[in-house]
């Protein structure tokens, strides 16, 4: 056996083992740490499958944001059970139904999927040739970017809408509370943040710019930037209160808004939404990518913060304590 195949085998065994261990773990904190490790190794799997675009996004999200999100969520949720409700004793049929459901349904679903995938694996491969044939009229030199922002731009537009909707849900459920201790920041941590934050911005810009020709683009860049924003929040930076109102909301919505406007304009111009005029395709894609990056970064960071900024701006509570005026 060649080493590459053994590598894949070991990687997949570890991934499946990790999934099993973290889902069966009695200790929730252990489960979260195992999930962070799972995300790390998943990025390796994407690399092995020849999907560097996905690996870039997974690295930014799996290594940075998901871990922070789950750790914060665990802290808020707690693992202590203070449930006021007692559970009614189950009847015999209820007791029986769970093992039957789990024991019969899951193996049969897996089997059907396996057969289906096995059948698919024998058919001819996908759209690589078609995409390469139309790449020079798409306005982008990289296949994945062309798919995201031209060939299947409709999907991406709706996906931006979903992100916005998710944030609206979060904001309607809760008010943002401070995530971290505001006092007692180690000077070494401040130093790390001062070093890393400019670098994060530079690398995010590089990833966005590179997306025109090579793996990279708005999603990866936005995810990286939002991890940077998270790091800034972690060391006590905060959005000034005067920007927490309309400006923040505009930033969150601009990605979807501009995309929607372009869809409307192209509908009027060419009769189909998001069918760009050929000579404008490159600039339109660039415009969408720029605003989308800003919006994705802000949306993901706001989703991790988990709540709307305080309505009454005079109360120095919640997301931005007025004391932290470093900026």
């Amino acid at each position, binding site marked *: 056996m060649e080493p590459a195949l053994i590598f894949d085998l070991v990687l997949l065994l570890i991934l499946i083992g990790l999934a099993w261990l973290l889902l069966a773990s009695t200790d929730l904190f252990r489960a979260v740490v195992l999930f962070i490790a799972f995300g790390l190794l998943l990025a390796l799997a994407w690399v092995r499958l020849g999907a560097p675009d996905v690996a870039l996004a997974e690295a930014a999200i799996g290594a940075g944001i998901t871990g922070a999100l789950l750790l914060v969520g665990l802290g808020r949720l707690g693992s202590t059970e203070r449930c006021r409700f007692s559970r009614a004793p189950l009847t015999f049929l209820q007791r029986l139904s769970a093992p039957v459901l789990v024991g019969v349904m899951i193996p049969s679903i897996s089997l059907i999927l396996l057969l289906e995938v096995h059948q698919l694996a024998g058919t001819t491969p*996908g759209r690589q040739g078609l995409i390469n044939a139309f790449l020079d009229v798409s306005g982008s030199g990289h296949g994945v970017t062309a798919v995201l922002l031209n060939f299947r731009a409709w999907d991406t537009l709706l996906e931006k809408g979903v992100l916005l909707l998710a944030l609206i849900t979060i904001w309607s459920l809760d008010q943002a509370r401070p995530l971290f201790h505001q006092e007692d920041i180690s000077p070494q941590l401040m130093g790390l943040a001062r070093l890393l934050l400019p670098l994060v911005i530079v690398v995010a810009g590089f990833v966005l710019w590179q997306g025109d020709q090579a793996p990279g683009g708005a999603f990866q860049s936005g995810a990286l930037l939002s991890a940077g924003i998270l790091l800034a929040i972690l060391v006590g930076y905060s959005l000034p209160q005067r920007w927490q109102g309309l400006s923040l909301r505009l930033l969150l919505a601009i990605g979807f808004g501009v995309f929607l406007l372009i869809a409307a304009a192209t509908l009027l111009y060419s009769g189909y939404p998001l069918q760009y005029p050929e000579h404008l395709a490159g600039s339109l894609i660039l415009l969408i990518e720029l605003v989308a990056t800003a919006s994705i970064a802000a949306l993901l960071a706001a989703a991790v913060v*988990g709540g709307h900024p305080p309505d009454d701006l005079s109360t120095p509570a919640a997301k931005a304590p007025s004391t932290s005026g470093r900026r």
Partner: protein
Amino acid sequence: MNTVSLYAGSGIILFSLGLHALLIRRHLLRKILAANIMGSGVFMVFIAMGARGESGVADPVPQAMVLTGIVVSLCFTAVAIVLAVRINKLTGCTTLAVDEESSID
């Protein structure tokens, strides 16, 4: 046994593990983790199917869709956590199942 079927098969196993845990685990955070694992399994099948062409490079279409999928699943996780915190705040529970008769309490 080639790389593609190896990864696709593992993706299905991950999906099943996640589905299993989603059904039988009580704690909401475990359910959220389970749904994430399910998603990862689906992404893996998708990317593996895209990689079965010429060696080394995955098809751009599944890559693009998984890319959006990863970002959406992160947002879904954030929404789910906020919901779980809300449930915890209102009921004191970290689980979903509350039987009708016993909830009078």
